[in-house]
């Protein structure tokens, strides 16, 4: 029982990280229908910014979090401005290939600057509480609470603010939005800033939980978070959260029941099965065929 509860905690921690990265994916996809394949690498940049802020500048945790999020958001906006904007009217697949290219570029650029894995020092004192045999660490608490706050905040922005309204309108019809007097460029830049900022925050959260970071860490985690977004129904904020936790759960419990080498196998097979039965994800809305 305690063991299962302990695994549930692990699941919550891992799921929260996946969920926050998935939110960034879903944000950009939901607004632009663009799979930003560089998102995993923006997450990695977030973790490295966190490393710099912690190990080199010795900043306090909250400042580290803000620096990582804002720094990554700035890089995300720059990537949009330089690489994606010129391709806005090009075939969608050109933009996706560009995104892949940007991802490979970011990975290897970071690798060239920092060839070795880095160890991120502790940002918060790690306190553990014992609750009837169950060990809860402060890090786990911070990660879970932070992810919930981020989700609620994003949900609020998208549903209730005028900028969120403009984003939803952009997703529906990018050609008509300027006729309302809205600058499409500004809204897209904002979308990327938020999406990348979430990646940066997730990078910090990851570095708290798993302090060894390297330039390639974003590839696999990025793809998995993407899958989480798809499982939930890409474009749906609540779906991304749900998908993140589901993936976290599947991976945690697969690792419990089977040798760890089966983890990916189980996760991806489940994904395939799910997609066959719900091709648009759990909370995704099927697009009606227009004839």
């Amino acid at each position, binding site marked *: 029982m305690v063991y299962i509860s302990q695994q549930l905690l692990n699941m919550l921690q891992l799921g929260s990280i996946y969920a926050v990265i998935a939110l960034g994916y879903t944000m950009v996809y939901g607004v632009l229908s663009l799979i930003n394949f560089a998102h995993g690498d923006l997450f990695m940049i977030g973790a490295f910014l966190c490393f710099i802020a912690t190990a080199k500048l010795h900043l306090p945790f909250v400042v580290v979090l803000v620096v990582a999020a804002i720094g990554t958001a700035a890089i995300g906006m720059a990537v949009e401005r330089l690489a994606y904007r010129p391709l806005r009217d090009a075939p969608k697949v050109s933009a996706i290939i560009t995104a892949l290219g940007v991802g490979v570029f970011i990975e290897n650029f970071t690798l060239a600057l920092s060839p070795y894995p880095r160890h991120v020092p502790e940002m918060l004192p790690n306190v553990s509480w014992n609750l009837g045999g169950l060990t809860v660490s402060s890090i786990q608490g911070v990660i879970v609470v932070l992810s919930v706050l981020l989700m609620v905040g994003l949900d609020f922005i998208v549903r209730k603010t*005028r900028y969120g*309204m*403009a984003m*939803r*309108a952009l*997703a*529906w*019809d990018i*050609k*008509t939005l*300027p*006729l*309302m*007097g*809205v*600058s*499409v460029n500004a809204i897209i830049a904002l979308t990327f800033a938020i999406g990348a900022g979430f990646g940066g925050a997730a990078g910090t959260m990851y570095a708290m939980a798993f302090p060894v970071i390297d330039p390639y860490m974003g590839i696999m985690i990025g793809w998995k978070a993407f899958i989480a977004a798809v499982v939930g129904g890409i474009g749906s904020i609540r779906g991304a959260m749900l998908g993140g936790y589901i993936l976290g759960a599947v991976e945690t419990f697969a690792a419990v029941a089977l040798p760890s080498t089966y983890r990916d196998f189980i996760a991806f097979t489940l994904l395939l099965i799910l997609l066959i039965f719900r091709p648009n994800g759990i909370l995704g809305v099927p697009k009606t065929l227009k004839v």
Partner: protein
Amino acid sequence: MANVLLSIKNLSVSYGNIKALRGISFDIIEGQITALIGANGAGKSSLLRAVSGMVKFDGEINYRGRNIKGMAAHKIVSMGITHVPEGRGIFGSLTVRENLTLAAWLRRNDPEGVKRDYEHVIELFPRLGERVGQLSATLSGGEQQMLAIGRALMSKGDLILLDEPSMGLSPVLADEIFGIIDEISKAGVTILLVEQNAFMALQLSHHGCVMENGELTLEGAAAELLDDPRVRQAYLGV
């Protein structure tokens, strides 16, 4: 007092190798309804898109004496030109209320006015009033057209470009929409109206332009065009 609001000079638009507009010139007089008629593919919608900054063009478009060439579409809106695009351009994932609010994007500093106009639109289209909280994708074609026109009123432009407001509407509903357009015009808004339904459009308008293959072939008072044998033969089907 003929006061030129919009002046188009030698306007050309191309999509790749295809020329949609070839050197069009005409003026729109403030306070009038100008009808633009012509067959499918004649370039009517391209002309509206050029005016609202959605496509690049050659030539000159002057609004209140200022050349708007090269301006971004959202900047052109801020000058007072509102475009109701073909197919209505409703944001289906937004509610009716959000659609109307979004159209007042640039009027941040005028919440009083926005509120007044919102109430005016609801008054004008009671059917929208019943559905303010509904996703606009669930509206019928006629209601969507009303919403599109309602949005134009929320933007409070001085010039409204209407692209085929009667498209896909039954004759009964089209009548209603034309009545509303007339009302808006009487309130002092200038209108450029593109229509397939040439008969109704010319009856409603002060001035008319006929386009063919990207060129302006005929221009004159709407009443005269209604009696012109060429127009009658090709566009009115009589």
